[in-house]
């Protein structure tokens, strides 16, 4: 479990209540809890959506879609019930931010769900936690029960005449259900396989009803935005990248942990100043900037702002905010292997390129790492990954292919060092690779 860390460069908005005992509802209320929800009830959906739009908040799951816009897509009239769905299936390797929110500030998630529900006119919200977060479920369940007891959930919330229900649910342990439509399938009790889009969830979602599905951090941010005002929130970040975000910095750094930094914060500073730099005087070899699916950066590429647009310009992605720092002791082939093993294991198997592609990548890189490959195998690995890109049913295939292409492109020499029976040169000096 990540311990709480702190650094003066942080701007604490969403993590404001971490470590303050806010899982208890009374303490949460003391810390301005449920004020935003009451304001939302008072001022109505238009106001909520306007504030959300003004905040420049973009989805914290990784895709970065503007949240206010997403909420505004939900049709006003609908025959089927509308739903809010909180995606707490935090599974991207290197990412552990939602976890802290559930642990320290569960009511922020509930309050955010309620706000989203008010915005789109839903009467029900689901909070879906990844299967491995089962131990957090108790905390969430207690928070939900407390909110019901106070009359913040259920019938006639806050005496407003509005009804709103919240249900918690855990997954069964599948990365794939982090994909929004697969998550809906899973929640409906089916195999966690994505749906064909369109229709998008905003039109046909959970149980066929219009559904807003947001990452837990996104949802937990909503109350703060309403409290401080969308514009004030937007000002914290960079242009088109409003506010702050939780970055989980892990790997070879002095002070790994989750830090809340303004959007656009410099990656190099985040590693060397906020997280305290590389321990043991080792040299930096590579950075995976936004969870394991984002293409790797070389040391000379990390002087870049942590927002969606600057990262895209740098040829990678902001992703889920999981920054993995890799020092010179790590074999990049092994790192690539560890990454592809994860995706091979997590592929839902629905479509051919992802199901078969991840498996062949895993097999080929395993063999290469063990010294059983020849030169053309490196090209084959790249060929395989490139033929998966953009061809798969859902983004998981890309998530597997993208980093692999990055590793082969930027560390080809390390792949070559393994060829023709030589095997892994790092084996003897290897420390555990932290992923």
């Amino acid at each position, binding site marked *: 479990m990540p311990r709480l860390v702190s650094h003066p460069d942080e701007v604490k908005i969403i993590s404001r209540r971490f470590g303050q005992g806010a899982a208890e509802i009374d303490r949460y209320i003391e810390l301005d809890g449920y004020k935003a929800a009451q304001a939302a009830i008072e001022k109505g959906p238009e106001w909520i959506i306007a504030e959300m739009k003004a905040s420049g908040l973009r989805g914290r799951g990784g895709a970065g879609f503007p949240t206010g816009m997403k909420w505004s897509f939900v049709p006003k009239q609908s025959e089927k019930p509308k739903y809010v769905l909180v995606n707490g299936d935090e599974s991207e390797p290197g990412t552990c931010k939602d976890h802290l929110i559930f642990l320290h500030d569960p009511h922020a998630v509930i309050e955010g769900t309620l706000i989203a529900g008010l915005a789109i006119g839903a009467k029900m919200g689901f909070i879906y936690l990844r299967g491995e977060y089962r131990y957090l479920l108790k905390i969430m369940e207690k928070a939900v029960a407390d909110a019901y007891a106070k009359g913040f959930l259920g019938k006639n919330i806050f005496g407003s005449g509005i009804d709103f229900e919240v249900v918690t649910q855990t997954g069964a342990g599948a990365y794939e259900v982090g994909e929004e439509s697969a998550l809906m399938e899973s929640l409906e009790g089916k195999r966690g396989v994505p749906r064909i889009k369109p229709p998008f969830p905003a039109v046909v979602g959970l149980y066929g009803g219009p559904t807003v599905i947001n990452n837990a951090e996104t949802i937990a941010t909503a109350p703060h935005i309403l409290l401080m005002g969308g514009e004030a929130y937007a000002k914290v970040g960079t242009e088109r990248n409003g506010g702050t975000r939780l970055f989980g910095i892990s790997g070879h750094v002095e002070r790994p942990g989750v830090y809340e930094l303004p959007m656009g914060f410099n990656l190099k500073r985040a590693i060397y100043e906020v997280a305290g730099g590389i321990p043991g005087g080792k040299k930096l070899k590579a950075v995976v900037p936004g969870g394991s699916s984002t293409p790797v950066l070389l040391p000379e590429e990390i002087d870049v702002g942590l927002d969606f647009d600057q990262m895209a310009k740098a040829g990678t992605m902001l992703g889920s905010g999981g920054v993995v720092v890799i020092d010179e002791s790590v074999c990049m082939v092994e790192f690539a292997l560890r990454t592809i093993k994860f995706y091979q294991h997590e592929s839902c198997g629905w479509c051919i390129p992802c199901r*078969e*592609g991840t*498996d062949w990548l895993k097999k080929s890189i395993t063999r290469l790492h063990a010294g059983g490959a020849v030169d053309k195998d490196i090209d084959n690995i790249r060929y395989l990954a490139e033929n998966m890109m953009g061809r798969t049913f859902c983004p998981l295939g890309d998530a597997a292919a993208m980093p692999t292409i990055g590793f082969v492109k930027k560390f080809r020499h390390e792949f070559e060092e393994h060829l023709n029976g030589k095997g892994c040169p790092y084996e003897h000096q290897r420390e555990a690779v932290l992923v």
Partner: protein
Amino acid sequence: MADVTFTVDGKKLTAPAGTLLIDACRKAGIEIPAFCYYPGLSLQAACRMCVVRLEKVPKLQTACTTPVAEGMVVTTESDEIKQSRKAILELLLGNHPLDCPVCDAGGECELQDMTFKYGAAESKYVEIKQHREEQQWSPVVFFDRPRCILCYRCVRVCGEGMDVWALGVQNRGVSSVISPNGEDHLDCEECGMCIDICPVGALTSGTYRYKTRPWEMNHVATVCTHCGDGCKTTLGVRSVDDGSEIIRGDNRDKSGMNGDFLCIKGRYAFDFTTREDRITKPLVRQPNGQLAEVSWEQALEHAGMKLREIRDTRGGSAIGVIGSTRTTNEEAYLLQKFARTVLNTNNIDHHRTADYASFAAALQGKAGRTASLRDFLTAPAILLLGNDATEQHPALAWNIRSNVRQNRARLYVANHADIKLHRQAKSFLQIPQDGYAALVQYLAGNEAGFDGTEISAAFREALRKEESLVIAFGSEFRGRDIQSLVDFGLGLPNVKFAALGDYANSRGAADMGLMPDLLPGYVPLAAAKHFGEEYPSLPSAPGLDMLQMFDAAEAGNLGALYVVGSNPVERYGIDPTALKNTFLIVQDMFMTETAAVADVIFPAANLYEKSGTVTNTYGDLQLAKKAADKAGVRTDFELIVRLADKMGADPKKLVPFGRGVRADMGQTRGAQSGEADRHAVWLAANNLEPKLSPFDPFAVFDEIQRLVPSYNVSRFELLGGQDKQTRSDLVQIELDPARRDLVLPANDTLFTSGTLGRYSRMLHSVMESRTTKPAETAAD
């Protein structure tokens, strides 16, 4: 929806907005490769073979999920697209066992075809392929996991198409595997649809696997011999030393009324044709009471002499004839003509499974009121009264399910049992077993006799609002009930009807006059004037029906009984000693309970071994083509003619062949050979083909078309393999109100098929393997 115009590979195309690109392209002759897409089943977008480039869209898109839109510009073949497809094939082949030389699908495999087109010559992987042992899930279904490409067609056809949901996907990622939802076995309808739809050789059938290579077979399109739906089927046959053997039943061209569908019986229950206990030599009972094999000549001579003697001494009324529900129309027609004109008797009947005569009477003069099996696929609303179609009319059930699923057709079901089609029904009404007549009265607005409820009121209300309705009713309806049902239906705006009877040619047997009181086309004996020329010596009084014949036999008044393809002893529970004073001639494939007490047994061919036409229970007329052949047996048609000949009758009067051309009675079997070429079809269709043989069923078909106006359909389409509906409006009939309908429903299940079914090992092994066993039924 409004049409939109778009461009595919430089061609301007038009299609209704919302049409899937893959369908629009296929319609325009642009083939887009696909594994997972299957028309009529839900979309998967899983195989990624159908990728195309849409202008201004960054990624390649799947044509199977893209609806066409105005101005869309599409490229379906380019280097980039080819490469993408090739990469998919490389991935698949990487793990594929490539045991094509022994695989059942070899030569008919979509993976082979795609590889042929896009190439994946070089293997990029050296890792070991995953191997798994093949599994047997049921007597019908075998699974070879390594060959599976996970297109999910089987899962969908079983679930969405069959509404059985026996198959699913287990595990995830590269461990994903198709498996029965019942763990390691199937307790399903055993239709084999999953096997048929599998693009590769992953699912194979117990009857066909490792038997042959597809190109070693001849493929003959004909009609299923089992239930009254009359599915079009293609039989794969191969030469063996005693003829040609059926190795496979499937549904290759899908042009029949049954579309994609065949049930277990149509697909697998052809194995009765090759049983070693088939009778292949004529048998005659000797003075010592034993049956002995004799030559054809002797047997025919003996039977002919005997019949002649009885006719000449005791009169035709001392002879009875029982026909079949599985012989062709020509044979049924010929049999009753033989009885009426040669034997001089009207003692003719068959096992009746529906009251077609009352149905014909109710609909006479009403054009366009009978529903084809095809209508159930398109009708906006369907009312099913009685019958459990899933068991008794599997193709009907398939069409209904497809219609409900694809067109949101509204299905109304009233039944005394909670039948499976309840699941597709918009409204379901459970009524007492004897409540069908009262229900019709109730529907017509007459409350008396029916315990109306809110449900039944809503049912009636909704029905009455339907603007276009197809009504199918089971054998629960007979006589007057049929009349009232038709009367009720005709009060609604646009209604068509179907009477459900049980066997492949049950309807044909009735249409062709295998009844004591009705001539072909349901013409009462009293109104037979236009039959005069062909039936010069027609006895005018109605003959004995089935039960009367056996009573007469018991009383010693039936000198001879000629049974063609029927097993009345078993079906009607007749005590065989009742026949001890009757000279019994039986034509059959097997030593049935009836054959066992016969004096003469002629080994007969079955429907798969002859040509002719059959009429399904909906009145759809189809061409049956000779597929298999068995040395030693003869068609019922030939046997009837030969018997007539032996009795001294003029075969030319019986079968109007020759037309002045001298015929050679030796060239018999050739005249009925399998698939006709197009030229022959044309000649036959235009009646230009000389019928040189008295064994040519089409010579009789000419006469049928002349005397039975409802059968006067286009021959060209019929001979080209299309079904043509007969016209019940042309029937003229006054039924005697006291007439007995004598309907005895067969109550077959999916796994039984009267006597015939008892001789199918496949059906037996399926029943034995099941955990829930449906009751076995008996004869016919």
